[in-house]
């Protein structure tokens, strides 16, 4: 089952899993505090070859009317992880529901890593100014 099907009077509407993945991925990365998505080795290799993968780190399960989303993310250093995760859940649910009409039953967020910005690394209290 790779598509969500919807019956209307005029015929069937199908939404590919890939579409749901991309919508979810974009909605997750636009949340403040998210440094990026975390894909596996396969998407790492694909990225090295120059293919931008919009559904990286996203796994979806799409049924007739419902969808479940699993996200693997990397957060920025300094953010409160639970707050960011909750924001992601809300944002992804809203985006997927409004764009595809599917009911999102759950959004599981898995924080895989923390991204440290190089510029922010300052010594505690330098002895010499």
């Amino acid at each position, binding site marked *: 089952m790779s598509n969500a099907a919807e019956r209307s009077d005029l015929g069937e509407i199908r939404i590919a899993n890939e579409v749901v993945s991309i919508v979810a991925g974009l909605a997750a990365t636009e949340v403040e505090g998210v440094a990026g998505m975390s894909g596996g*080795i396969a998407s790492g290799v694909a990225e090295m070859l120059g293919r931008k993968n919009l559904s990286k780190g996203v796994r979806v399960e799409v049924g007739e009317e419902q969808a*479940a*989303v699993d996200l693997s993310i*990397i*957060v920025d*250093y*300094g*953010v*409160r*992880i*639970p707050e960011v*995760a*909750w924001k992601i*859940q*809300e944002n992804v*649910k809203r985006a997927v529901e409004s764009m595809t009409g599917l009911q*999102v039953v*759950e*959004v*599981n*967020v*898995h*924080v*895989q*890593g*923390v991204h*440290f910005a190089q510029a922010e690394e300052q*010594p*505690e*209290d*330098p*002895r*010499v100014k």
Partner: protein
Amino acid sequence: MDRFVIALAALLALAFGVAALSLAAGWNGVLWAVDVIMAARGAARLESALTGLLAAAVGVYLLALAGQRETEPGNIALPGELGDVSVSLRAVESLVLQAASSIRGVREATTRLGQEEGRLTVDLSVLVTSERPVPELAAEVQQRVTRHVQDVVGVPVGRVSVAVRNIASGHKARVE
């Protein structure tokens, strides 16, 4: 990246092992090895079989290792209304190291994390400089790591053990 290299090495070893075994078995479908087969017919057959077996075993072992490495060290589950939220221990590990090594007097830190009854346990091993008294430093490490992890990850920290591995000779560079 490590995993990738291991998997590659495993596949190479496996391929070599299978090739050597097939040579020993007398199968000469391997075109590039026809010359070797000619040489290997006879006395060298046993050696070829043994080498093949060894290489195949190494390949299988390395593959198993690569597969094992792929599993995460573990996760911490957080409550979430719309679905599960989990944080990999590797992410928490980097937070702990960041918090510990930003303290004055800590030169290097390594850590191992665990979970006991829903609480996070942290074992830290630090290399300190001699510019501060160790007890004071250790206490600060415990406080800061506890606070930092609770703030950022939102899970209670059960205990933070600090082991001072060594005292670094020489001072930290005074000017960065």
